[in-house]
């Protein structure tokens, strides 16, 4: 009998603790944003062939020359990449240097894509088996990374860049030393 009563008061205490925890968590601002695990990581070693005639390919060494850049992961077959194209142009017009990796693409398709949607890129590497894409923690197209002058990832934007994202990305690029 005594044990039952003690157990029950224990249960009351336990529920009070839980309610306290609930109340505390309710009062906390909810931040659902999960930081990319790649932030602060250096770019892996790679050397990609040019994805399209007339533009150089992309290698790790190109990213560690002291100048921060944007790295755009895209593909000619990706619909959101088309929507993103004008905002990449805006970024370039604001002084950002943008290099790109084309995922599982054919040179003629990339050329056609750039013909229609414009070419804000200085270098385009071809990643035919998503090797580099996976190594930098990108799970889809499009994604955009901010890389500082030492070739270290400082920011990852998942999904297409929309007009409202442009100032934030420019800010991140500035923080990376531009």
């Amino acid at each position, binding site marked *: 009998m005594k044990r039952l009563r003690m157990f*029950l008061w224990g249960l009351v205490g336990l529920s009070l603790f839980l*309610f306290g925890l609930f109340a505390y968590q309710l009062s906390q601002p909810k931040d659902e944003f999960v930081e990319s695990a790649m932030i602060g990581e250096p770019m892996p070693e790679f050397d990609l062939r040019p994805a399209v005639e007339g533009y150089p390919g992309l290698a790790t060494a190109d990213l560690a020359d002291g100048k921060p850049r944007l790295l755009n992961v895209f593909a000619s077959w990706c619909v959101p990449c088309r929507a993103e194209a004008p905002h990449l142009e805006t970024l370039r017009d604001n002084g950002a240097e943008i290099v790109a990796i084309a995922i599982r693409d054919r040179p003629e398709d990339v050329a056609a894509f750039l013909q229609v949607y414009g070419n804000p890129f200085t270098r385009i590497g071809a990643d035919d088996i998503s090797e580099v894409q996976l190594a930098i923690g990108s799970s889809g197209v499009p994604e955009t990374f901010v890389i500082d002058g030492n070739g270290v990832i400082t920011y990852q934007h998942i999904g297409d860049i929309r007009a409202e994202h442009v100032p934030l990305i420019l800010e991140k690029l500035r923080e990376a030393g531009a």
Partner: protein
Amino acid sequence: MIAEFGLVALWFAAALAGLQLFAGFLGLREGGEGIAVLARPAALVQALLCGLSFLMLLWLFARTDLSVALVANNSHSAKPMIFKLSGAWGNHEGSMLLWVTVMALAGGLIAFIERRLPERTMLATLGAQAFVALGFYAFLLFASNPFERLAVAPAEGNGLNPLLQDIGLAFHPPTLYFGYVGLSVAFSFVVGALLTRQVTPEFARVMRPWVLGAWVLLTLGIAAGSYWAYYELGWGGWWFWDPVENASLMPWLAATALLHSVSVLAARDALRAWTVMLGVIAFSMSMVGTFLVRSGILTSVHAFAVDPERGSFILALLALNIGGALAIFATRASTVAEGERFSILSREGGLVINNVALSAILGIVLLGTLYPLLTEAFDVRVSVGPPYFNPVGAIFLFPMLLALAIGPLLRWRQDSFARIRRPVIALAVTGVVAVIALWAITGIGILPLLGLALALMVAIGSVLPLRGRSLRRLPLSVWGMVIAHLGVAVTLFGMASDTAFQKERLVAVNVGDVVEVGPWSAQLEAVSPVAGPNWTAIEARLSLRYEGTEVAMANPQARSFWSPPTETSEVALTTRWNGQLYTALGNQAEDGRWQLRLWWKPFVTWIWYGGLLIGLGGVLALLGRVSGDIRRRVADRKIADRRADEAELAAETAS
């Protein structure tokens, strides 16, 4: 006017709940008979008003009255009628109104028919029910008014999430809600019995149909939800240990234990404290579940409209109801005397094992669900998933299943091992042989291996109570037990064999290519666009062969709804008695090939067949109990009539 009428009805219903609360509790005091007579009528009229209010909401949705905020946010004039109506409860406010309505209807029903308990206990029960209900009325009226008007009516509604435009989902949430509300009735009975110190077998008999009914609905609701996630979300799994799934599983676990406990109390006047505690915990878990789902403090795939203010409201109700009930229980612990004694080797003993194991699993699920919340307070983000829940839950699940296989063979109060030696040895041998054979032949993992062996043992154990009994004379409630236990075996078998033997292929194919998976081969014949009432889709035509013979076509779709624009995957399921082939169509790859996902899932459907059997068992037990109650009531009335006649006769003879 309809919306205002509904709102007024709701306010009046809330006022009557207030009256019921006072009548119930003041009526308990000396000389309170005057006010006590109001309790039952208050509950009845409240039920009518609430029902009316809910009908008004249905009407608003049927007419798509866009001047009402809830309708504008959740409906659309182009939706089929059935989804317009289900839209009434497919949102926060409407579902809370449904909750309150069902609760009021249940209260009205007990006020109208329940006469077996002492009147004081009934008053306390109705008072407790009104207390719980008032909290929800306040929540509705102050924090989630379903009848709120918009200043300017929009031209068109916002639609309903197309994932929810599904017949299964139209009925999955209300089924669970009815289950939760049934548990709230059990909770009120427990509080009433505690307050008036009447934790008796009669109390257990009165409470039992509510627990049974709630448990059946929770079982069906969970099974339906699991099947919906399986075919609609396109992931091919049937349980994800997602916080919202856990939120529905925890009340079910408590209700399952309560169901067994309440039967012991009714039959043997034992396990009083267990019954009372489980009665409190079952409803507490329903409320904790509601809180976790609605407050948004846990991240879940079920993205409900989340609002911390509403969360605080439910938390306050939670603390009042649960804290209050537990405190009452603790102060009354001495009046809930232990009840009849029994030996460990007895039916009661088996059921205690069942209670302990279910409570432990409940604790494990609760801990796993809340653990991320606890660590987040220290800024550590974790997520708890199958690697924790499966093995840790199995530690208690497997012994419980052994008890399930043997327990029903035991006699009440005291039994001897000698009497049940033969079936127990037979079961043990079956189990060991099954484990060795499966291990040698298949080499599957330890959990599915034990699962398959236990499924066999439980299946045999569940039908053993039929041995040597006349099947025609067997009471419905025993049939219910046998079928429900068999259902557990069937479900377990489905889970274990799907886990152990499923085969998956994720491929990119051109039209004309053939893909092999398990005993199946599928040829992609064509990919073509199709159109529905409010969507367009790309549909694949797959011709399927099972072990070389042509059996069927499968047409998985990638569907795009245009208002609001949303993409869903409509998987195609090809069902055989021994499993399902699950096919889903993905995107077109850059080179023109189509992504296809093929998944052969042996015996996966048995999970839900088992769920249906468990539910059917519950329904039979409920029918058996209720018809028994009615028969007893008729018999009592006849005896009373005859006594009255005899007394009259005696009086006449005397004069």
